């Protein structure tokens, strides 16, 4: 990997973080005094990915136009890293007619056919759908790949098993990504999963399984590169588990009492400052550049939020549209 790669990875991570930090702010801004999940300009559940940016940018760095991603309920980092338009995505989160889904989908149901990006709020159900996209890519004779993303909690859902067997059996160009952030809402990995590495489950399908520890974006980049190349060159699916960290609550409003003392360790586990340090030590980044990257990201985010807020809201009548094509 080149210095350019590294800076891209860094820039993307910062871009995603600045975006979600701003969404966090906007989300809470108008829900008080009596905090109400349904109130404000951004209502409903909000699952943010702070801390998990390395997974998204490390994987998506290897994708090209036409490659597909199915993401779970926590989709923003993969959406942005995969090139989903920030303004249209933000407008969707604000429920506006200019949104990706004209306000019908919301943050757990972002659909961007241009970038072959979709997500679903039902655990692990994006895994089989990605297999079908990969099947289509293969039948059409393209070299496109489909990436299926889910959390470690999702790896105990039946759909995970069926999808991996199907992809292996049919030699489909799929990369199955598990983001292990140690938690499924309040349930720790040790209370949900009988083994310590889901990479071991790849054995049950005869495909490669790799677990990347420490949430390091460069290691993720390397492992993902191998998996994507394998899929693209027709050698079939792989399973990639990335041990990452959920810096914030499961959803906004989650008090996280169940995390106890672990909460105090989160700041030092933030992968972005860590990576900035590493790049500085390598002499590839300095404070000016750090500030500039942040400023660029903030400018893009500002524009997206502005666009969303300025966009029209749908009407009640619009709700009756799009049941059938």
């Amino acid at each position, binding site marked *: 990997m080149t210095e350019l790669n590294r800076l891209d990875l860094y820039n993307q991570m910062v871009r995603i973080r600045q975006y979600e930090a701003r969404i966090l702010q906007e989300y809470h801004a108008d829900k008080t005094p009596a905090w109400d999940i349904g109130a404000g300009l951004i209502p409903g559940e909000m699952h943010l990915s702070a801390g998990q940016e390395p997974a998204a940018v490390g994987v998506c760095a290897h994708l090209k136009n036409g490659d597909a991603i199915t993401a779970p309920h926590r989709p923003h980092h993969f959406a942005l890293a995969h090139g989903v338009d920030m303004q249209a995505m933000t407008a969707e989160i604000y429920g506006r007619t200019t949104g990706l*889904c004209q306000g019908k989908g919301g943050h757990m149901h972002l659909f961007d056919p241009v970038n072959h990006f979709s997500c679903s709020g039902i655990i692990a159900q994006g895994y089989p759908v990605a297999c*079908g996209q990969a099947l289509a890519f293969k039948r059409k004779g393209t070299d496109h790949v489909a990436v299926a993303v889910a959390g470690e909690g999702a790896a105990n859902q039946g759909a995970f098993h*069926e999808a991996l067997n*199907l992809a292996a059996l049919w030699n489909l160009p799929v990369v199955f990504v598990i983001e292990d952030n140690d938690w499924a809402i309040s349930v720790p990995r040790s209370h949900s999963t009988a083994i310590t590495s889901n990479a071991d489950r790849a054995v049950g399908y005869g495909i490669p399984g790799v677990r990347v520890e420490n949430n390091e974006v460069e290691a993720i980049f390397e492992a993902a590169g191998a998996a994507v190349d394998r899929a693209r060159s027709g050698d079939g699916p792989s399973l990639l588990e990335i041990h990452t960290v959920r810096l914030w609550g499961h959803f906004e409003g989650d008090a996280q009492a169940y995390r106890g003392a672990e909460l105090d360790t989160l700041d030092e586990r933030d992968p972005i400052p860590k990576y900035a340090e590493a790049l500085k030590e390598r002499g590839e980044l300095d404070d000016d550049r750090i500030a500039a990257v942040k400023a660029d990201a903030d400018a893009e985010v500002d524009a997206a939020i502005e666009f969303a807020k300025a966009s029209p809201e749908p009407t009640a009548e619009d709700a009756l549209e*799009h049941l*059938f*094509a």
Partner: protein
Amino acid sequence: MTTTETPVRRITTAKAMAEGIGLEMRRDPNVFVMGEDVGAYGGIFGSTTDLFAEFGAERVIDTPISETGFIGAGIGAAVEGLRPVVELMFIDFYGVCMDQITNHMAKIHYESGGSVKVPMVLMAAVGGGYSDAAQHSQCLWGTFAHLPGIKVVVPSNPYDAKGLMISAIRDDNPVLYLFHKGGQGLVWMEKNPRSIAEVPEDSYTVPIGEAAVAREGSDVTIVTLSLSVHHSLDVAEQLEDEGISVEVIDLRSLVPLDVDTVLASVAKTGRVLVVDEDYRSFGLTGEIAAIIAEQDPTMLQAPFRRLAVPDVPIPYARPLEQGILPTREKIAASVRDLMA
């Protein structure tokens, strides 16, 4: 429906289904078939007869017993522009894949604000009457008609089976295609004369959302579908000798539902019996009552009647199962009551 000049021959419903799929596969390379035993076996109930021989394993794909996996894969393939015809062997197995069907296949187009299409056919066998018991004999069409985003068609005869299959495959929306095992014309099941009929050899469509007046009558309207259409027609013929004129409406589609045809018939006869092989409560029979009562309860010169499975699982033993299915005897008795 488009008519045709070519000579007709008599084929079974199963053959008609397979013929409809085959015609579309020749016409459109994006059409392919997936499911358990749809390949060399030809589908447990004959829905893919001879397709494997013509199109091979690349386009007629046997799957593992992973309904969530392969129905989900059908959705992904459809999203990317293919037109999968996916078989769920028995509708009774919906429970292992219902999330893909109702939270994904049914909702993606709407959730996406119309930007994503899911042109896919999900076909499944329904119905009882041959002692296959509680987990292999259900109809469940009411369950699917209740959940928005899926068109639901339920042909009752070979002609409609072929025409609705072609319409379903060409439709840009997910279509659930339910066929009754007892109406397939299979050599290893009870022979049902109305399961073999004249079907044009070339391609034609039967529009989704249009009911058919299977038989005209003036005294009583029977609203029904699927194999119960056969029974209702038999009863109508029999009751004619008793001087009762029965109109039989074959709904053919549940989503969209052809409300006008139902209301027109009830307005004419003033008496309605809904015959439904699905469970009685919270289903099709209630929906028909509602569209009548919403329109004008005074249309009904006699109380609304429904004959359906009385809210118990389908039992195994023949006397038990025959006791809860809408048999010809029960249909005839219900009509006579309505006229009394």
